[in-house]
């Protein structure tokens, strides 16, 4: 993007700076080889400034990078060193200066070495030596832990102490090997193979402290890598932490970051395991106890329901119904009997009232002529007539002396 400018229409500085910055940003990251002409570390400042000079032409470029990038260089970065820098050119608009912002600085020579290792890594990877499906898992509790390390090394102490602390009963079988130098690869191969042949060894740890890329070269040795790959026992690589991973880390079944980490990986922490088991058991116990309590309460509640708690109600309810019915029936029958009795009394009274005997008892008598006809009138009766008088307890034969008509109405008399 070219700026359209003229003496009459100049571009402001900021616009030019912005355009330059944009162009430079497009360059992207590059690997640059050069010599450190000047190294400027200022106390308490996180950024380091250095001048990188072309070894042939009189050309140089400013490099800025994080202090950690410079500090990680091995051997330490000094003025005059040949380096390969990975960085991104950047234009600092406020000062109008150009600088390479580096995120990696490698010593030349080492760079070639790393490239060789990278090619080896790729070949072995293509062959399938690092395949995830070829990895074996570690036993939970190995009967014997095989250890390949240097005699009296910090790595040995770290593995042994941490393993014992976690699982006091652990058995360790250590095979010493040079962990650095020309003999190292051969000795490590032999040690791994020896431990692999021992049936008691359930896991092999190859342990070494951290070191430079050159120090760790034996652990990228093809023979070592193939020996570890061929081992039937799971192998843990425990090479001190480094930015450039030795190939052993890739072929090993498990990669530990440090020897101490390896100890954590190969044996469980006995106290931790014990605590976990106790916690699980407590939880299980608590669960079962709670369940039992809930169920017992629920069962008690069901049993307390009236239909179960008081089963006599089943019968008594019905007995009450029967009693009730009997009472009602009795009441009904009694009522009817009472009424019948009343009727009877009434009728009896009427019968009694109508009976001539009652009348006779009150002193009346019934007169009958010789033919047995009841006399209710003096008519037809003469002096000398013989009549029969019926009283309560018998008959009297009476003779009429005279008759006297009466003014009273004879119909007042009761008749049989």
């Amino acid at each position, binding site marked *: 993007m070219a700026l359209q400018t003229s003496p009459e229409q100049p571009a402001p500085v900021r616009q030019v700076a912005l355009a330059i910055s944009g162009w430079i940003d497009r360059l992207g990251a590059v690997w640059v080889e050069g010599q450190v002409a000047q190294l400027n570390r200022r106390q308490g400042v996180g950024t380091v400034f250095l001048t990188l000079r072309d070894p042939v032409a009189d050309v140089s470029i400013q490099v800025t990078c994080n202090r950690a990038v410079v500090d990680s260089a091995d051997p330490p970065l000094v003025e005059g060193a040949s380096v390969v820098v990975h960085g991104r050119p950047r234009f600092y608009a406020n000062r109008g200066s150009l600088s390479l912002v580096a995120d990696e600085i490698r010593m030349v020579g080492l760079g070639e070495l790393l490239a060789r290792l990278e090619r080896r890594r790729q070949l072995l990877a293509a062959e399938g030596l690092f395949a995830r499906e070829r990895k074996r898992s570690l036993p939970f509790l190995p009967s014997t832990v095989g250890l390949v390390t240097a005699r009296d090394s910090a790595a040995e102490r770290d593995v042994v102490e941490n393993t014992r602390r976690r699982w006091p009963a652990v058995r360790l079988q250590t095979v010493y090997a040079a962990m650095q130098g020309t003999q190292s690869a051969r000795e490590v191969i032999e040690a791994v193979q020896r431990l692999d042949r021992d049936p008691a060894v359930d896991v092999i740890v190859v342990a070494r402290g951290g070191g430079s890329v050159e120090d760790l070269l034996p652990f990228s040795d093809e023979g070592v890598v193939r020996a570890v790959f061929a081992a039937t026992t799971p192998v843990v690589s425990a090479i001190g932490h480094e930015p450039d991973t030795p190939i052993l880390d890739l072929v090993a079944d498990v990669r530990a970051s440090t020897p101490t980490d390896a100890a954590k990986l190969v044996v469980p922490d006995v106290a931790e395991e014990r605590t976990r088991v106790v916690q699980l058991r407590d939880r299980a116990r608590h669960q079962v106890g709670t369940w039992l309590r809930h*169920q*017992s309460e629920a069962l008690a509640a*069901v*049993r307390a*329901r009236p*239909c179960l708690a008081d089963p006599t109600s*089943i*019968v008594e309810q019905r007995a009450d119904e029967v009693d009730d019915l009997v009472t009602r029936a009795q009441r009904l029958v009694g009522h009817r009997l009472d009424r019948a009795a009343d009727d009877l009394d009434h009728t009896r009274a009427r019968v009694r009232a109508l009976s001539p005997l009652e009348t006779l008892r009150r002193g009346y008598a019934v007169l009958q002529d010789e033919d047995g006809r009841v006399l209710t009138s003096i008519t037809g009766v003469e002096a000398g007539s013989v009549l029969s008088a019926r009283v309560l307890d018998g008959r009297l034969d009476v003779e009429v002396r005279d008759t006297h008509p009466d003014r009273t109405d004879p119909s007042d008399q009761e008749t049989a």
Partner: protein
Amino acid sequence: MTEEQTDDLGYEQAREELLKVVRTLEEGGATLEQSLALWERGEHLARVCQEWLDGARERLEAALAEREGAEDED
């Protein structure tokens, strides 16, 4: 309805049936004979449940006692 017939009842089965029996009894409407049979069944089921729970509690306590014993030995 004999004990043997229901001895193989699991706890949950017995509990489910017990609830069903109680519901039926509470709804009413059954004949006297049915009600009595239901009640007997309910009593039996309640006993089965109780036996399961008692058994479980015993086992739990036995396990706890065993554990405490083991810890005392430590």
